């Protein structure tokens, strides 16, 4: 209970800060305060929260699906596949609606993720570091294909946008697709027990009567949708799906029905905090939230690897 109060307070503070901090001075009087808030600051705040929460949840699902804590969507080729799908639809039907592009990206992301799962079946499980290495190479190959395609078709500027999670361009009317993430998160929470079961391994899950393949398909479809929406609207943010679930799992365990809301909160808060920091460091210029997160996330991850939590030995 205490934790929920803490979460609510910290969230309120962050949202408040995000609304106040920016180049346009809200108390200056020369601007329509209400308009700045509604058109820019609030959409930007929501976008950071939704993207962060969504990517963190996607990380949990991917980790449970392959029973490995060292992976995240960005390490299994999901965003790269989404970009490939986006690139193809942009080339084939450049004028299609954003929702159509996003759907194509989601389907491509799903196919790409299953490609990784197929690869993963052939990777020995004893050494947990092997799987992320394979994923790194796999997503690197897809990323290279995207880059080549972009280079030959003169679409390189798109890639920069899709790759660097950044919120300065978020305006009312141009980010609403991200609310799909909120909807998907609720669906994920409703299947939390099943996803925990995935994490116990295929044999155990199946012998407990879980339809393993169906659950895997459902979980990874939701991951693909989240990643596709985030890539399309603000650009992917690496490490959120890796760091946040690991922090929560270390501190509070893997009972996802209890912990998914906390994972979503920490993911959203951290990305929003990084966005705020990015606005302040070189004020009035901005640093992408994705860049700030990479620095903070790396530090946090190192701490995670070395800190020995209470009552726990081994991994």
């Amino acid at each position, binding site marked *: 209970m205490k934790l929920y109060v803490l979460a609510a307070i910290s969230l309120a503070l962050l949202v408040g800060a995000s609304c106040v901090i920016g180049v346009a001075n809200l108390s200056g009087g020369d601007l329509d305060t209400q308009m700045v808030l509604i058109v820019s600051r609030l959409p930007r705040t929501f976008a950071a929260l939704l993207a962060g929460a969504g990517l963190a949840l996607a990380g949990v699902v991917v980790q449970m699906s392959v029973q490995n804590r060292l992976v995240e969507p960005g390490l299994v080729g999901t965003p790269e596949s989404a970009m490939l799908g986006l690139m193809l639809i942009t080339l084939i039907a450049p004028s299609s609606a954003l929702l159509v592009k996003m759907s194509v990206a989601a389907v491509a992301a799903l196919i790409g993720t299953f490609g990784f799962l197929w690869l993963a079946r052939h990777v020995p499980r004893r050494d947990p570091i092997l799987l992320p290495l394979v994923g790194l190479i796999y997503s690197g190959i897809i990323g290279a294909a995207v880059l080549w395609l972009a280079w030959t078709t003169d679409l390189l500027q798109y890639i920069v946008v899709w790759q660097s999670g950044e919120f300065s361009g978020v305006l009312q009317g141009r980010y609403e697709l991200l609310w799909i993430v909120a909807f998907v998160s609720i669906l994920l929470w409703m299947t939390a027990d099943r996803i925990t079961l995935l994490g*116990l*391994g295929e*044999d155990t899950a199946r012998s407990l*009567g*879980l339809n393993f393949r169906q659950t895997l398909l459902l979980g990874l479809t939701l991951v693909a949708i989240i990643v596709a929406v985030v890539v399309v609207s603000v650009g992917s943010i690496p490490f959120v799906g890796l760091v946040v679930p690991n922090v929560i799992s270390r501190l509070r*365990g*893997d*009972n996802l029905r209890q912990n998914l809301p906390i994972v979503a909160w920490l993911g959203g808060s951290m990305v929003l905090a990084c966005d705020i920091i990015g606005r302040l460091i070189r004020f009035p210029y901005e640093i992408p939230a994705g860049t700030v997160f990479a620095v903070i996330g790396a530090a946090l991850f190192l701490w995670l690897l070395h800190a020995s939590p209470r009552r*726990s*030995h081994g991994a």
Partner: protein
Amino acid sequence: MINIQNLSVEKDNATILKDVSLRFGQGGITALIGPNGAGKSTLLHSIAGLIEPTHGTVAVEDINITTARPAERAERIALLAQNEHVTARLSVRDLVNFGRWPHHRGRPTALDHQKVDEALAAFDLMDLCERRLESLSGGQRQRSFVAMAWAQETPWMLLDEPLSALDPRHVRDIMDRLYNLTRPGKGQRSVVLVVHDLGVAARYADRIVALKDGQLVTSGPRILQMTGPMLSKLFGTSLSIDYINGKAVVVPS
């Protein structure tokens, strides 16, 4: 009753099980023994309905386990797989509660909580139930997984090498509990387990099933079938059975 008829399993063009036919009834402990690579684990997974046979059928009680719906399967058989690479950070109680998943599907009732408590008590885990698995010793963790399978409340429990990497005290602890829980009486279960320790098989098994190179060598009551010559042939090294204070032990001869 488990009824296996002409079961063959092939994987990647290699024959893992060849024409195995077996029947055994409820109750007691059945030990699957045999050298490495004999197909013991595959047989266990086939009985659990998790591997599709290339030929033949596996029936558990009244149903064909291979074609059964997942929920039907989970009412009849609990499988504890070997899964050292899985490191779920769950409390012991949460884990055992997942054993009740086939019954409550995420909405535990008072009965489910009671059954979880019973399983925790049966495997002496009450004091540990709020601890997380990764903070336990190997023996305690394995006991928790066995308790989870127990809580599933299926007539059959299949355990794939539940004793590997356990010291003698924990082996004895788990086997004594399983032995008592499989004796005739109210709520009697049947346990089928893969063991490498022949001493455990000699001491606790009611029945043995011996496999070699994917084929059935012998099966039946342990007292009749588990003999020195049979073991020697099975493992390709000379073994014999001795009795110390009336208890069977396997010794190299």
